[in-house]
């Protein structure tokens, strides 16, 4: 087999893995959008906040330590204990639920029945606020996150491809784990939203507030639930990205990468988010590999956005989105 083709295969595989990570972030958006009609701009920051909280809890960091030291003049930074990762993840889930409840009580509750654009603006505000809180709470230095997920080259794939092609593929173990976790998450979410009472209620609330109330659904409860689930998805995405590239503030920018994914897949489709993520992942890696050398590289920075732009022009509802038909 020619070298070029083998390289292309490896690049495609790596692209698929990267795509899964994009899809994970996009999923958070789709979920909130389907369940509440809100485009949650804060999803990326929520992933950052979740990852920082997780690291903070694991390392026994004192929350708001800078603030406390500045006001009271102490030098506390750490409690001096470390928390095992499983327990820390559970605690972080708890924190995300509390956050969901706060978002509902302080922000969303007061905006019932408002235009979607108003709710969208509120989430932009939330994003900046949350970023500030994350900084104040856990500090702004880059941290490593290790919850015990396997990392590094997968030797089995390396060996077997070497025997097959005479060239070993480099596939990161973390990416394989991420794929598995994403599959689990999606299955769970689909089961939840399609078959459970709470899932049905969630879809009902997304469609019509008044009608939902009239069949006995509490809007408050459902919204806290929606934001909790979004927080949970953000945590999963935060763990994956944080393990891969460290917990740092640029993590909130992965939300930007999710936008083209959503435009491709459609804002209302869970399978769309996954397929969209995979297409962007493979597309940008292959494009960089094939076209990159001709134009001086760095195509990964813009490829996804140009692809999204093309979609906006020719198929604005995305691949799987619902076609919008207005009755006149």
């Amino acid at each position, binding site marked *: 087999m020619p070298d070029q083709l083998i390289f292309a295969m490896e690049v495609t595989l790596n692209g698929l893995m990267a795509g899964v990570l994009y899809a994970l972030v996009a999923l958070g958006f789709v979920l909130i959008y389907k369940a509440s009609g809100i485009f949650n701009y804060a999803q990326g920051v929520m992933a950052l906040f979740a990852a920082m909280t997780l690291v903070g809890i694991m390392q026994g960091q004192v929350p708001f330590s800078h603030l406390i030291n500045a006001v009271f003049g102490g030098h506390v930074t750490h409690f001096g204990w470390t928390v095992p990762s499983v327990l820390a993840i559970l605690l972080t889930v708890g924190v995300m639920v509390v956050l969901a409840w706060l978002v509902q009580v302080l922000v969303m509750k007061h905006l019932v029945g408002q235009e979607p654009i108003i709710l969208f603006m509120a989430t932009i505000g939330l994003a900046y606020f949350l970023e500030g809180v994350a900084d104040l709470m856990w500090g702004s230095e880059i941290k490593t996150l290790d919850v015990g997920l396997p990392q590094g080259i997968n030797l089995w794939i390396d060996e077997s491809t070497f025997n097959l092609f005479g060239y070993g593929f480099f596939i990161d173990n973390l990416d394989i784990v991420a794929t598995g976790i994403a599959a689990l998450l999606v299955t*769970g979410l689909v*089961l*939840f939203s399609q*078959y*459970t*009472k*709470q899932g*049905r*209620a969630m*879809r*009902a609330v*997304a*469609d*019509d507030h*008044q*009608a*939902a*109330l*009239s*069949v*006995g*659904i*509490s*809007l408050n409860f459902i919204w806290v639930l929606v934001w909790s689930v979004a927080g949970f998805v953000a945590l999963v995405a935060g763990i994956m990205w944080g393990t891969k590239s460290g917990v740092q503030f640029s993590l909130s920018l992965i939300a930007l990468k999710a936008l083209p994914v959503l435009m491709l897949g459609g804002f209302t489709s869970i399978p769309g988010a996954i397929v969209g993520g995979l297409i962007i992942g493979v597309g940008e890696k292959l494009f960089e590999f094939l076209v990159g050398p001709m134009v001086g590289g760095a195509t990964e920075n813009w490829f996804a956005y140009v692809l999204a732009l093309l979609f906006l022009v020719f198929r604005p509802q995305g691949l799987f989105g*619902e076609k919008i038909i207005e009755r006149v």
Partner: protein
Amino acid sequence: MLDAAESYVTADGRTIGGVVMEMKNITLRFGGVVAIKDISFDIREGEIRAIIGPNGAGKSSMLNVISGFYVPQEGEVWFRGEKRPPMRPYEVARHGIARTFQNIALFDGMSVLDNVMTGRLNYMKSNMFQQAFWKGRAEKEEVENREVVERIIDFLEIQAIRKTPVARLPYGLKKRVELARALAAEPKLLLLDEPMAGMNVEEKEDMSRFILDVNDEFGTTIALIEHDMGVVMDLSDRVVVMDYGKKIGDGTPDEVRNNQDVIDAYLGVAHD
């Protein structure tokens, strides 16, 4: 005047029971506007009770008070022998009061069947995991709930569109799906907000027939608001007439028809 607890049999052989819901001296204000002024009336078990009146009379406000969407500033709401504390609309729904809306409120993204199934949400007691994996109580529950729903779907003759997303349905059918969803909750009291608004004659006749049949077959107590006088007079056992937020008549259709205040309100007389 009838005794509150006494039951009687109507001319067409239906038994009307004691008082289910009683509104006592309800006053509702929006800022300086008085939408409902000191109105009292009751609804008996098994009857079809109409609230009529010209535009802006406060009929929909009254319905919203009953279903908890508005909380009146004064007055008491008695439901099934108990004074009702101020409640959220979803709590009212859980206490057995279902409703439809003047401007249809359906879940557009769902099929007809799913829409009607949402009416059964409060009958599901199994937990999230049982439901997600279709195990234990969840399976039995779902089957039972589906039976109730299918019976209602048959009854309202919407079998053919069971799987259709409601957004695609014509107006008349949407109204019927909304009725089905309200019925699925097996309500103690069913509120219909202008069930015939915007319908043609044929659709109105269908809807009237369904309302009568529902009342007859399930014994459902129904309170409805309607503009169309002819329809109201044919359907209802007793009628409350409102004008400018006040009650100007209450009684059987015949009594109301001959009430001078009601005639004035409808034909138009200068208010002094």
